[in-house]
């Protein structure tokens, strides 16, 4: 029975045996081929490493996000400082960028630790999630210096933005400018991000306790990007006839644009210290408050790290405090945290002819960086 199937079944067996053999051959071939390629690559990179590894301090900059203008400029400043005459002979800076997830940064840090550098400077994807890895680096005798987004691990040095202080200053400034009354819009930032939570909590607290007659009539999620801020504010404006101020952690330029398009009078604003924001506020002669998140924080970090490595200074491992908030006009406000309140001045803290993406100010300490250096590295 079924005579026609007999022959194919036979052929099937024979072929099957051959195929099993072929599979192992294939596994071996692919593995071997790729391994050869791997050796080639690794020998090249080993050569590159050998030239770099002299007496210099190797500092790794571990960053986790490149999606906005701040991070590239932060890296540029670090590069400029590290390659300045003062540090050129001392420091070899390596930059590693990964995706915006703790997992990616942890993996990258693991591989950095294997290189046994002198120090790692970390702009952290999470204040807590990197802690075990950071501890591990400290154990390996590596100096860990976190900045901007810092970690809570005790063994790491921390140079954070003082968001709590900045948020307090922002709310106080707006409360004062509005004379304690009016309808305002509030930015909820980016869900789940530490800075947004801090801003929101502090703002709400300050307004509730000190300025009870200021009413929050609308919220929007700026996501710290111009697009969502423009959309969010526009939507809120369309629904609210009277707005007397906007408390945002994002973009005044987008707020002004939204107000203009809606045909509304301009109102006092708070936002990031980005050149575009400052240009817009200056042009509109509008009272604005720019909270400082300077990109040169990485330069400060490099300085500190070298000092620490050379045992020139001893820093506490608690948080450093620094701040650069400034406003367009010196208001009649007493700020608890602001160390230096500046008036918006062309060429000093904003640059009318430069890119809107430039993070200002570009100079700090004794370093006189140019906008070009910060923008292009």
């Amino acid at each position, binding site marked *: 029975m079924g005579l026609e199937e007999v022959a194919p079944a036979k052929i099937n067996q024979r072929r099957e045996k051959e195929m099993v053999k072929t599979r192992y051959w294939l596994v071996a071939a692919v593995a071997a081929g790729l391994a050869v390629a791997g050796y080639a690559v690794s020998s090249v990179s080993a050569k590159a490493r050998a030239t770099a590894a002299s007496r210099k301090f190797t500092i790794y900059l571990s960053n986790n996000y490149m999606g906005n203008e701040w991070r*590239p400029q932060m890296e540029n400043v670090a590069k400029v400082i590290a390659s300045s005459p003062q540090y050129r002979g001392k420091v070899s800076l390596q930059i590693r960028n990964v995706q915006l997830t703790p997992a990616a940064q942890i993996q990258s840090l693991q591989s950095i630790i294997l290189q046994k550098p002198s120090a790692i400077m970390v702009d952290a994807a999470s204040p807590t999630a990197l802690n075990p890895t950071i501890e591990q680096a400290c154990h390996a005798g590596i100096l860990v210096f976190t900045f901007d987004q810092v970690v809570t691990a005790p063994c790491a040095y921390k140079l954070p933005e003082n968001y709590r202080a900045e948020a307090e200053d922002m709310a106080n400034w707006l409360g004062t400018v509005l004379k304690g009354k009016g309808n305002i819009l509030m930015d909820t930032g980016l869900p789940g991000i530490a800075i947004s939570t801090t801003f929101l909590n502090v703002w709400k607290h300050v307004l509730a306790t000190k300025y009870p007659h200021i009413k929050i009539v*609308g919220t929007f999620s700026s996501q710290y*990007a*111009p697009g969502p801020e*423009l959309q969010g504010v526009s939507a809120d404006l*369309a629904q609210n006839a009277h707005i007397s101020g906007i408390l945002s952690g994002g973009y005044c330029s987008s707020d002004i644009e939204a107000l203009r398009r809606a045909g509304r009078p301009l109102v006092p604003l708070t936002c990031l210290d980005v050149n575009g924001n400052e240009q817009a506020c200056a042009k509109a002669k509008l009272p604005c408050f720019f909270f400082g998140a300077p990109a040169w924080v990485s330069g400060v970090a490099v300085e500190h790290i070298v000092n620490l490595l050379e045992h020139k200074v001893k820093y506490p491992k608690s948080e450093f405090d620094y701040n650069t908030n400034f406003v367009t006009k010196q208001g009649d406000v007493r700020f608890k945290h602001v160390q230096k309140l500046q008036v918006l001045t062309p060429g000093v803290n904003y640059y009318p002819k430069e*890119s809107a993406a430039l993070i200002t100010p570009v100079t700090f300490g004794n370093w006189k960086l140019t906008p070009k250096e910060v923008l292009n590295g």
Partner: protein
Amino acid sequence: MKQVGSWIRGRLGVASSYALCAVLFVIGAIHSPGFASASNIRQMLVFASFVGFAALGQTLVIIAGGLDLTVPWLMAFGGIELSRLAAGGMPAVPAIALVVAIGAIIGLINGVGVTWLRIAPIVMTLAMGGLVQAFLLAVGELQSTGDQVPAVAVHLASNRVGPFPVVAIVWLGFAVAAGIVLSRSAFGRRLYAVGANDTVAWLSGVNVALIRILTYTISGAMTTFGGVVLAGYVGTTYLDIGGPYLFTSIAAVIIGGASILGGSGSYWGTVAGALTLTVLSSLLPLFQLSNAGLEIVYGVVILIGVWLASTGHRLLGRLWRRGLALPDNMQGGAGDVSA
């Protein structure tokens, strides 16, 4: 009259999407008087059009049984590359044409990878998105960022003709064109055929590979154009500008009644989806929910919208007919593609 009835019946899924959009709008209008103001409607039309541009190609790709995840990066590419070209001295209009053409070529590569190399669309377009992202990072690293968006794009995005925003008019034009192409052209019919069953389509003499590649190419071009307009509207460009449009573009297509498996859907449905999502995201902040609450409500409404467009409208229709004591003989119908 009977014809009108059957015409509507064949499009109940799409109709339900518009109904959902209307319901959300009414809720907004009741809750806050400013919601129904001309300025807010205009605003929402503009926002919806960005989704609409990104979702046009997505609609075609999904009807053909694919998926395009390059959207956010191509949108970013549209704005950044245009600004870069303009900063280099290129006149705006040819620069826009060039950028859109490059977007089309990137889409073309997607299509070639999906059809000829047989890479799953989700992986091909994901990886292609990675390559575009790498290019943008390279541009950012090697050259100055923050170039000005050319005025043409800004005008396109923010000017008005009478009470109507220019973008919305452009969008309407694209919608009409896409509607005609899908329902009245040979390409459209073949597109549905490819999505419904590509083996049958191939054996029926349809150039399956060409159709697929074309959908990705159109998607690449339209998404890039959307990026140009979005950059014009925002007035500046940055890498993450397209981020919100990845899943929004897909959700709009699905809320518009398309099956993610391919073979059905329409651009007018997608338009409804884009409008619904935009009204929803304008509506939610009114209720001053926390970010967490916002996300939960957003997800729930998307599910309701999709349910209405796929199966829910049939159920509601049955209830409605029962209320009017009409005979329940509405089975079958013209189907999605018969002209």
